[in-house]
């Protein structure tokens, strides 16, 4: 009795907790509402399964608990039942997987008009780089890193000359424009994580990773690191500010470009009229 009742109570508690507890995700600030939708579908399907299975179990425990004279039913297997259950489960799984894969495809397909920006991680702070007037980022490599050139931009690449370098400050982005965030680390693994954007991706030294999103809400959003990167991991914070276009331009105008830094003085500013080939880092 107590056991069956406790099982029922666990279901009731879980469902109630889900429905009324104040703990839920942060209001979204990007186009990745699809992810939230898939997550909610998954919650419904799995919640229904959990409720049904545990309640059935509670009923069994109640109905078939030992009493003097009770004899268990003898039935080693039932092909029909097992096939039915397999089929139903496969259907439920497919109902979650299909939308999941469709959304994943969107997640990894970057729109052509996305602006490329770069986030650089190191123990334990964030830096950023935005393309200058040429709309392209110059190449970079850890071997270029020095006190004067903290992000390791290639001083011989003229595409990099007008790149805006934000070393240790906050990142601003304009609302409504898709961005492809290129992620780079100079030391260990990190992960650029803004809960309100839903997207995240590890940064791996030696390679460039990416994700894309479109900001849909102005405001200040905290950046956290989501991949263990040493003692300062929990304190590796920053802010991304999503601005209206005009504010953004105003902010952008105040930033330093690479050519303005000591290490970049020798670089020629790129001629936007005749771009020279790709600059994908």
């Amino acid at each position, binding site marked *: 009795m107590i056991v069956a009742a406790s099982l029922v109570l666990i279901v009731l508690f879980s469902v109630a*907790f889900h429905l009324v507890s104040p703990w*839920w995700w942060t209001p979204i600030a990007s186009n990745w509402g699809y992810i939230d939708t898939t997550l909610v579908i998954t919650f419904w399907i799995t919640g229904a399964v959990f409720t049904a299975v*545990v309640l059935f*179990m509670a009923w069994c425990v109640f109905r078939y608990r030992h009493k003097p004279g009770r*004899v268990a039913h003898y039935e080693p*297997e039932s092909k029909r039942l097992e096939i039915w259950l397999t089929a139903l*489960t496969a259907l439920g799984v497919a109902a979650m997987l299909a939308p999941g894969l469709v959304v994943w495809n969107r997640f990894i397909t970057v729109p052509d008009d996305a602006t490329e920006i770069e986030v650089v991680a190191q123990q334990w702070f964030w830096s950023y780089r935005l393309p200058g007037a040429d709309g392209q980022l110059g190449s970079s490599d850890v071997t270029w890193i020095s006190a004067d050139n903290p992000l390791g931009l290639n001083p011989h690449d003229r595409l990099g000359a007008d790149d805006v370098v934000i070393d240790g400050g906050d990142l601003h982005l304009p609302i409504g424009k898709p961005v492809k965030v290129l992620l780079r680390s100079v030391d260990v693994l990190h992960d650029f994580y803004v809960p309100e954007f839903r997207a995240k991706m590890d940064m791996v030294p030696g390679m460039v990773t990416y994700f894309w999103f479109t900001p849909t809400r102005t405001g200040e959003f905290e950046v956290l690191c989501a991949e263990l990167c040493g003692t300062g991991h929990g304190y590796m914070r920053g802010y991304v500010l999503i601005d209206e276009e005009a504010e953004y331009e105003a902010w952008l105008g105040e930033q330093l470009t690479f050519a303005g830094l000591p290490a970049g003085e020798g670089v020629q500013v790129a001629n936007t009229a005749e771009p020279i080939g790709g600059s994908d880092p």
Partner: protein
Amino acid sequence: MSSVSEDPDTGIPPAEVPDLPPPHAHGFWSRWVFSQDAKYIALQYSGTAIAIGLVALVLSWLIRMQLGFPGVFDFISAEAYYQFITMHGMIMVVYLLTAIFLGGFGNYLIPLMVGARDMVFPFVNMLSFWVYFLAVVVLAASFFAPGGPTGAGWTLYPPQAILSGTPGGTQWGIVLMLVSLILFIIGFTMGGLNYAVTVLQARTRGMTLMRMPLTIWGIFTATVMALLAFPALFVASVMMLFDRLLGTSFFMPALVEMGEQLSYGGGSPIVFQHLFWFFGHPEVYIVALPAFGIVSDLIAVHARKNIFGYRMMVWAIVIIGALSFIVWAHHMYVSGMHPYFGFFFATTTLIIAVPTALKVYNWILTLWRGDIHLTLPMLFALGFIVTFLNGGLTGLFLGNVVVDVPLSDTMFVVAHFHMVMGVAPIMVIFGAIYHWFPLISGRMLSHRMGLIHFWVTFIGAYAIFFPMHYVGLVGVPRRYPDISASFVPDSVATLNAFITVAALTVGAAQMLFLFNVAWSLARGRKAGHNPWRAASLEWQTPEVPPRHGNWGEELPLVYRWAYDYSVPGAPRDFIAQDDPGHRASWSHVP
């Protein structure tokens, strides 16, 4: 060659090899220290695993104290916090769960359940334990080494694992951890070969594969998986040790640490992750499959009913074991690996949910129309089903690649894997201890203490880990000693304090369990021969507890599967496997 031919009536084949006695101990050392008796080795394995597991339990209290009451305990610095979670995680997964299921339950139950006198290689079996013991000593030594244990996280991802920004990275911590893992794998390999060969070669006459209890199927499949998976961790550990000590660059690209160029170059951190998870994902099932097997048997015995769909259960174990080798990269969806991998690994991962779900259904269908005795093993089995189901379902979130993106590396993940591979297998371990303690010691564990232990552990663990999912949904990352952030409402701190109180309570209940074991060893009620009226072979030995060599003059003969409970027309509600009497009515009974 024996001249006996197959018995036409029972189908029992003739003996293929003579029945040799296992080696006998002659003195103190060979009896009590370097024992070659699998039952004694099992207890050595279990005792060591539980002892180091207690360290991991205490570490979990410290972790929770920091999270529940940040700033109150100032000896828990960020460095210490990372050392605590790393050692807690690694000990729990490898040195406790893997060791106790395979080295502990495997050693005790395999020979008894398949009707053998001992493992086939008793000397290697003894060696296996002592190498494991050495691995535990090396691991424990890292607490006292300069710089303390490693704080790299139980995943030990390079480059940070061997750099100065991580506790123990350029000191002793990571070296001792890797050496300990290498020793563990050597020790396990010796034991594992033994378990697998014993199951394949030393079954008694009549014990066909399809008559083995699911416990043995679970342990056997897990052993084979471990023999295939651990080598990946072995090479990864050796390579990382070289990177750390010899300056090679297997996993190290060119990098700048704190403004200084290091001499590494050309290696790939992602390769380590592939190797780690090629081991790490099967590892989840190495822990889960023995639990699946054992819980099946607990449910059948205590519901007086054959396990529903035995053949399906066997195939599910084997299929899950095989599939679990092609899902590893679901731990790496946001690692930066090629995004197309996501399609493949999400699909395989969700496919594995189908045989897993079937197992859950079959456990419950075994309860259905059963004769359920709410004994302690049954209660823990029910607790296992609830927590495993819960954790399995949240696995569908994390396996479904795009849903994992916001959730990965948050407390949601921590809650998920604790439910599914922390709490659930531990429920089975407790159920199994309550079930087999009478066989091992001849006495019952106290029921009253057991009830308190069960309810506090089950409800408490649910209260710890169910709400923790929602902390992760809010967005709190894992491995954060201090979770305050602009988007985290103050109420989360209250919830965290509650979780901590629950964790400390659950911890205290484990002390009651240890007391119960000690008390019952001396004072427990005498168990008698087969207190649960179980049909499987381990309860049919001439003496209980079984003596050296397990069986009397003759090895037992097996006439049926392990699940002949409540057979219509039979005189009792179970028929032991070695009982030639009543034939079963079901034509498919193996």
